[in-house]
């Protein structure tokens, strides 16, 4: 049993579970105080409403201010972690083209699919929403497939 746990979780589970609880507390605090289900991907479209008149973006005008503040909060909270626990900056070794191309598909897919890992994954699953559970099952299984293909091409990064 101990062995199995070490195989499945080579880096332990403590920081994962504690981090997840903080993510949940952040979303729960906003929900309890305001009734808002905070998702991170709508920020992309609502922020574009400052510079584009397209109706898809303008529909988010009423929420765009708090969405900017939510994103600034996420950046700040991560910076607190970096200062207190990380001691300096951390840089990824994932190639920029993968971030750029992956980011583009994420921008399209999360907006067409009505949410991302926070909206569907945290708030939607937390609401026991059927649409969110389907969305998470789809993006999770496809992402595993793509990552395994990348790894089989010698582009894996697991550590």
């Amino acid at each position, binding site marked *: 049993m101990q062995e199995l746990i070490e195989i499945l979780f080579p880096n332990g589970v403590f920081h994962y579970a504690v981090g997840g609880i903080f993510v949940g507390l952040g979303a729960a605090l906003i929900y309890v105080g305001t009734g808002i289900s905070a998702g991170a991907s709508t920020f992309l479209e609502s922020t574009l409403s400052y510079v584009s008149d397209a109706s898809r973006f303008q529909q988010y005008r009423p929420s765009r201010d708090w969405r900017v503040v939510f994103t600034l909060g996420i950046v700040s*909270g991560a910076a607190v972690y970096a200062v207190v626990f990380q001691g300096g900056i951390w840089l990824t070794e994932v190639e920029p083209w993968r971030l750029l191309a992956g*980011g583009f598909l994420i921008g399209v897919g999360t907006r067409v699919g009505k949410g991302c890992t926070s909206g569907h994954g945290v708030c939607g699953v937390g609401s026991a929403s059927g649409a969110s559970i389907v969305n998470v099952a789809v993006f999770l299984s496809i992402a595993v497939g793509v990552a395994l293909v990348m790894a089989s091409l010698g582009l894996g990064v697991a550590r």
Partner: protein
Amino acid sequence: MTDRRVLALVYAGGVLFGFGLGFSHMARPEVVLSFLELYDFGLLFVMFGAAIVTGTAYFAVPRLRDTAPITGSAYARRLKTLDKNVVIGGGIFGVGWGLSGICPGAAYASLGIGNYIMLYGVAGMFAGAYVQGVVRSSAADETKAATADD
């Protein structure tokens, strides 16, 4: 302009949220990709840990009171209509997630831990959101014009 008290609370929630993404290492694409390559299953603890906390709040709070104290809004669950877009969008998102190991919230948090290389990812996300938004807006406008002609 949104009420200042709402903005203050959203900021505080965002700080907790971002701290959690930093602490759980979800702000590091390598760690997310290690999960997707089925090497380290720790991400499940992050997702379930978060969903259990929010699930408790979504379940319990509406039974204790009817409206949120700051906005006066009724408490609602986060429910979206299940249609083909939910599946198609989830699939496109999945390809991007598997390719890069980033998602929107984690990408913002990644900037917070000093990973300025993530600006590529954030730029890509804005570009993708912009393209789908412009295409779908003009499609919606055409539908509206066609309906008006009838």
